């Protein structure tokens, strides 16, 4: 009995040992698969989306169908595999092909106009609308003030004439 128990516990230890080895192998195997999958097309497209095809008209690199764009996407993948960050890849594209490849132009030189003008024009528009509304309100208030019905002598005369007519009708 004792011998059987010992044999059973030895068998249990071996089983646990093999299970652990198997699990360790599985983990490392999964890591290898994950490394092979990097970078995925989605990860490449996430960067390609922020870049524009240098030779096409306003087409982001992630949706551009040309052979040249496929080469640039492959280049992004190559750089990502080499461990480059998104900013480093974007900077590389700028150095190679110029600022025009960026979806958002860098805020320098005349590019500042792109960032400054829309809010300035928007705020300016609001100010103009506000000033005009204020002016309209003021002038309409003035019209009401000036045309005080109780003080208008012509209206008084008309009312008196109407009253006289009404009285005449009542009498008849």
């Amino acid at each position, binding site marked *: 009995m004792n011998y059987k128990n010992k044999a059973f516990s030895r068998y249990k230890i071996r089983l646990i040992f093999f299970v652990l080895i198997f699990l360790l192998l599985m983990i490392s195997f999964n890591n290898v698969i994950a490394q092979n999958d990097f970078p995925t097309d989605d990860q490449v497209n996430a960067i390609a989306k922020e870049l524009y095809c*240098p*030779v096409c008209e306003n087409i982001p690199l992630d949706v551009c169908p*040309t*052979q*040249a764009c496929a*080469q*640039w996407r*492959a*280049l992004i993948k*190559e750089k990502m595999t080499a461990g480059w960050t998104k900013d480093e890849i974007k900077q590389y594209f*700028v*150095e*190679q*092909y*110029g*600022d*025009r490849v960026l979806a958002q132009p860098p805020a320098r030189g*005349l590019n500042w106009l792109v960032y400054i003008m829309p809010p300035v024009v928007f705020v300016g528009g609001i100010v103009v609308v506000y000033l005009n509304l204020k*002016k309209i309100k*003021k*002038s309409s208030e*003035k*019209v009401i003030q*000036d*045309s005080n019905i109780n003080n208008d002598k012509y209206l008084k005369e008309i009312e008196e004439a109407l009253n006289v007519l009404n009285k005449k009708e009542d009498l008849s």
Partner: protein
Amino acid sequence: MENSHTDEPKNQKKLPRWVIIAAFAVLLGFLTLMGWGLRNAQQGPVQVGQKVPAFELTTFDGEKIKTDDLIGKVIVVNFWASWCKPCEQEAAELEDAWRYYKDSGEVVFLGVDYVDTETEAMRYLEKFEITYPNGPDLRTAISQIFRISGVPETYIIDKNGKLASRKIGPFVTIGEITSMIDSALNQ
């Protein structure tokens, strides 16, 4: 009622003079910018006889070639790209022409790789066994100087740094290339 109408013009506030001047200045600035952009866009490529601004090409090997240092020689500047199919038509002819003039020392060929990837460009150079100096058009600086409209385009600069001739599209024969270079050499 009449009073209100007669008073209205007096109550109207006029915009300060500086605001009007500033608005006109901004408008004028915009129009100038637009005009400048339009002029540049419609300017077309460098014209024959015009002085070609100096530029520097960094080759794939890292060598820096300055056109300033090449005065007295005829320079053949060819714009190409690995993704450009018509460029392949003239690649062999250009290399043959280069080999023809190489020993004379009077002609320099420069290949400018327009918006391309280095891996594909190197494959292209290897495929067509191109031996003359080639390098990327970094930040499209060189193509902007020539105001190219596409690839392939070839510009031949004479010994005095002026544009002798240009070819938009691929060369069909080596004779076409040599006749243009010879005419630049004889100028």
